[in-house]
């Protein structure tokens, strides 16, 4: 009864058939195809820190002519998708000035990740939005894993924490954060202000995103190719199919709204994906831009308002979305700070899309990478897969509501 799983050892016919049926952005096609071509290769094997030090040395030497020295190299936790190593770099800077020490982070892919994304795009968007919102400075990239074991980038170590130290979350990956009544209003305002800023980025910023396929006002191309992206991931990675996912896919294609304004969409826009300093409650860096794309601002709003990121306020009756504000106030604040309107119909549409892609990631890819032993933290990824059913309920409920 147990047949061969074509997704575990895909041949070129299987890979190309899915590529043909679900066309996606050029760079997304490249990374997803690479993933499938490497699927039957080895899983993750522990990488000695010394090997990464050699790779970091080689990557920096390739880009710097002056001398430098690494120290204080250590593993970092946090996040479910990438291998992260912190270190201090003693160097002369790009300007060849005084010798200085700069804390930095290596962010490297495992053999397969719970989200398979492009380091080139991540590097590009970090550099593009740096003048708009605080992000870690991005230094160097090894796009193809030439000198490191896998594709990687090096960025600056930003100060701050993702969660209040006196209100520790018990959850992995920063899901379900409670910032507490003191920090909450200060962070909420900055969060929504920053989101509005990258959503309303101008042409000059968008033009820097050369590895992103453009989006067009009045068209649905951007969202159809995004639906295809996650449908493709579902087809490539899942263990077994889900009838609800098929119905949702059809609904998403049928109801796709035309774009009213082109925005930079963060893609994983929520509490837990920014750093803040506790002494002054300031957001110091927006993190995890790997899912960024050009599209509809409502996607980030819908994502940040997903059910798992909600909790009750201290009064026990007021529900806070994204750990910040009641839903209506959250949206009003966004509109006020950004100057951009929120369309409830689009928001509902993107709530379905966000649910769909979240199930594809957590249940589809989460299963596949853990089954293939492809990451440095399979146990985290397998645990995270259990969020799928809460999200699937959100998908089901929203489809019922929108008819």
């Amino acid at each position, binding site marked *: *009864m*147990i047949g061969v799983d074509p997704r575990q050892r895909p041949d070129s016919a299987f890979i190309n058939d899915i590529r043909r049926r679900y066309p996606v952005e050029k760079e997304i096609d490249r990374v997803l195809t690479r993933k499938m071509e490497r699927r039957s290769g080895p899983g993750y094997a522990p990488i000695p820190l010394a090997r990464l030090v050699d790779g970091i040395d080689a990557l920096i030497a390739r880009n710097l002519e002056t001398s430098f020295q690494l120290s204080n190299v250590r*593993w*970092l*936790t946090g996040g479910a998708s990438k291998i992260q190593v912190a270190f201090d770099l003693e160097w002369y800077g790009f300007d060849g000035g005084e010798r200085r020490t700069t804390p930095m982070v290596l962010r490297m892919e495992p053999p397969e990740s719970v989200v398979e994304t492009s380091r080139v795009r991540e590097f590009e968007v970090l550099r593009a939005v740096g003048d708009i919102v605080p992000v870690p400075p991005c230094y160097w990239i090894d796009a193809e894993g030439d000198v490191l074991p896998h594709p990687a980038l090096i960025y600056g170590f930003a100060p701050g924490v993702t969660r209040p130290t006196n209100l520790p979350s*018990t*959850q*992995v990956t920063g*899901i*379900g954060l409670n910032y507490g009544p003191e920090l909450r209003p200060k962070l909420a305002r900055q969060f929504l202000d920053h989101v509005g800023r990258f959503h309303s980025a101008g042409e000059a910023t968008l033009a820097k995103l050369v590895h992103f396929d453009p989006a067009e006002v009045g068209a649905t191309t951007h969202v159809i190719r995004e639906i295809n992206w996650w449908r493709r991931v579902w087809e490539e990675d899942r*263990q*077994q*199919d*889900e*009838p*609800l996912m*098929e*119905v949702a896919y*059809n*609904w998403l294609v049928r109801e796709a709204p035309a774009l009213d304004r082109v925005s930079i969409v963060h893609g994983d826009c929520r509490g837990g994906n920014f750093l803040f300093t506790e002494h002054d409650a300031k957001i110091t860096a927006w993190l995890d831009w790997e899912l960024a794309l050009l599209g509809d601002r409502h996607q980030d709003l819908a994502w940040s308002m997903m*059910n*798992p990121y*909600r*909790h*009750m306020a201290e009064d026990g009756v007021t529900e806070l979305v994204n750990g910040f504000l009641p839903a209506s106030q959250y949206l009003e604040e966004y509109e006020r700070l950004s100057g951009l309107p929120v369309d409830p119909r689009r928001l509902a549409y993107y709530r379905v899309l966000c649910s769909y892609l979240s199930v594809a990631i957590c249940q589809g890819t989460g299963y596949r990478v853990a089954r293939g032993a492809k990451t*440095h*933290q399979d*146990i*985290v990824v*397998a*645990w995270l897969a*259990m*969020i799928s*059913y*809460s999200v*699937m*309920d959100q998908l*089901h409920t929203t*489809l*019922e509501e929108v008819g």
Partner: protein
Amino acid sequence: MVPDLDLQLQVAIKALTDAIAPAIDPANKVAAEQLHLTVATLTMVRDRLPIARRFTRRQLEDDLAMLDSLRALVTSGDPGRAAALGDAAERARSLLADPQTDTAELETYRGILAEITVSAIKELQAGPAAPAVERIVLDATRRSIERRRAWCIPAGFEPYPANIPAIETLI
């Protein structure tokens, strides 16, 4: 039998908690986080293992009910498809009726049945039955989703776990 699966899991969890955890360098946060999740995973497996077969049977019964509803839409128009769906439903019924069918077999067949069901949905959604198909799937998946949410409560991802019925009441 001694040791039974429950006892084996119990002692493994105890060893990890009492002997291994204190030996881990507190500075090694990766090791500490993975050990924490290892203990949580084993604890959840220990809790769910005794009811796993019942759970999977209820899931397959719900899958079968959805397939039967979809079959009613194809019977007249496409006899070949109707026969294939009938065979799949018959196989599910025979597995459920056989006391020797173990959990893994049931789960494997659930995967096969899901592929068959989705294939039928794809075909039906291209025609006039599309709204009826959507209604059937939404109705038929409600209980199955709730059951899986209840199963995964220990993972801690539900914002309001008290609103979800206990798994024992859903299987």
